[in-house]
């Protein structure tokens, strides 16, 4: 079952952008532009795994809304343009999981969401893509119920692609995330692993090569 995320952000442009990306990343979500409305909604439905709260909100601000999410044990990531109040937010982190300062990159937000879910133990451990099931806890890959052998690094690459499906993963990002920043091998290493995954899982068409950038898993 996918993770469910509450978005409270009064700027339509930002909330739309976040929503689109969350949807592609395989999350479910609910968007509110007003703090009070979000708080009222929480009274009835509070089955969220995470909340993204803007601080400057009409109705009820992010800090006030935090008290409501806390009641239902929903971890919170603050989204703010107030760089000057970073310390204030840090002080409030006693309860909040994280904060992110505008302007931010979507990938950064996705990573932080995932880290926050992982920390609170709410992260969905089983990822699905078409007929492929990836269990990140036991590190197994099933295709139509049959287990497929992948080398550890191939498994990690596959997890990245599935996690961020429909989103281009650059070779640099894959290298950094999986091999680590200390790795000196060229980006050819990534290509070799991708080729293996394509072959073993029959994902030749689904894993698209994005020229000069990297790869994207498309459904």
């Amino acid at each position, binding site marked *: 079952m996918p993770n469910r995320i509450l978005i409270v952000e*009064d*700027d*339509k*442009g*930002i909330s*739309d*952008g*976040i929503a*689109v*990306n969350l949807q*592609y990343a395989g999350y479910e979500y609910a968007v509110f*532009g*007003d703090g009070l409305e979000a708080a009222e909604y929480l009274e009835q439905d509070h089955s969220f795994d995470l909340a993204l709260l803007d601080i*400057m909100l*009409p109705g009820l601000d992010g800090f006030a809304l935090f008290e409501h999410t806390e009641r239902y044990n929903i971890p919170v990531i603050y989204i703010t*343009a*107030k760089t*000057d109040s970073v310390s204030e937010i840090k002080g409030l982190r006693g309860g909040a999981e994280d904060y992110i300062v*505008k*302007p*931010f*990159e*979507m*990938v950064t937000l996705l990573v932080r969401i995932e880290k926050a879910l992982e920390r609170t133990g709410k992260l969905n451990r089983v990822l699905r893509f078409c007929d492929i099931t990836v269990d990140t806890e036991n590190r197994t890959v099933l295709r139509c119920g049959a287990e497929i052998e992948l080398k550890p690094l191939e498994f990690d690459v596959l997890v990245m692609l599935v996690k961020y499906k*429909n*989103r*281009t993963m650059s070779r640099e990002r894959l290298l950094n995330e999986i091999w680590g920043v200390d790795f000196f091998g060229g980006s050819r290493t990534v290509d070799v692993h991708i080729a293996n995954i394509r072959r073993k899982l029959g994902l030749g068409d689904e894993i698209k090569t994005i020229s000069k950038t990297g790869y*994207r898993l*498309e459904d």
Partner: protein
Amino acid sequence: MKLWMKTAAVCATVLLAVVAVCSALLLAQAKYSLLELTAGQVREKQESLKTSFVSMMNYYLPENANEAVRHSMAVYCFSQFADETGVLLRDGETLVSQAAVQPEVLLPLDEQTAVNEQREYAGLWQGQQVMVAGSRTYMQSTYDVYVVQDVTAVYNQIADMTRRFVVISAAGVVLGTLLIVLLVRRASRPLGRLGLAAREITGGDYAKRAITGARDEVGRLAADFNRMADAVQAHVAQLEETARRQQLFIGGVTHEYKTPLTTLLLHADTLLNTKMSDEERERSLRHIYSQCEWLERLTQKLLKLLTLQEDIALREQPVKPLLDAVAQSMADLLEQRGTPLTVECRTDTLVFDFDLMRSLLANLADNASKASQPGQRIWLSAQANVIEVRDEGHGIQPEDLERVTEPFYMADRSRSKKHGGVGLGLALVRRIEEAHGARLELVSTPGQGTTARVIFPR
């Protein structure tokens, strides 16, 4: 070398020179007088000795006295009057002399010397200072009457006097110099304090002031210096205030740019990196477009705010056309919002820049209309030196009233943005009103409306 040292050195040198010259003149004068006095005494003594001797000789000496009588008589008569200084010569031979000096050697009298003509000599004789006066007279023989005065004592007295003069002068010069140093240092101390104050101000303590002290030139300088420091302090405070306001403003600008930038970044990122449906793609592009528009509007307002001070044409002109122009330019917008504007003009002329004041009043009218519900009226009226915009809208909360003219302040952000406001309207209004030397007065009762008054200087 410090100024006080220079001044003291110059003064001391002048003092020394003056004392030396005066002492030398005084000494010379004293020496001359003393010697002249002594010489006068000697001359007088010789004159009286000679006169007495001659009178007595003439009185007692018989006409036909022989040589021996004349000799004894001369010795006798001379001895009656002469003391140890008197010397008598008869035909070049010494008759009476108790002096160790031979006056005829020092002051020889010869045939050319007229009778009774007194001659004198002053000089050294075997280590002694002597003064000699002598004259020649004839009474059958030549008699030379000399008075030889030892004046060593006088010279000693002069030397003594000289020594005392030197000592007194030296002491005077030393004392005088000390006094000069003290006075000059004392006079220059305020300068030192002034310098100290200047250094402290240079060090950043702009509140530091010099002690003005006496009402002399230095005191006046200190007072001038303090006035300069006041001006500097005021300017620094003004600059700091300007810098602080600019920093706040830039902070506001940055903050204001962040939200549209985030949207731009998110959607551009999504468009670049994500496989999307056409519908989603269009929506993202529309977001990007609207945010770009928003940024453009924000930039225009900012430019206006920043370049406002450059071209202002203040002149006295009628108010009615101004109000009409505002009403006309706002007509469409206000009609659309359903908030009609009523113009009332009861003032002839005021001093203003037409374009700027129109912009200001349009801003106020725009605010009034945003605060009003459809159907509520707005009044734009001029009376005496006041132009006011009044509405019956939702008003401003008292806690917001003071801050509404700050750049980017929006009492209710979500509603302001819905109307397309950037939060710069009243900040712009304030700048324009400052440029006119006018004053903006906001009176507002929540729920009953707001009155914005632009009060022109009389």
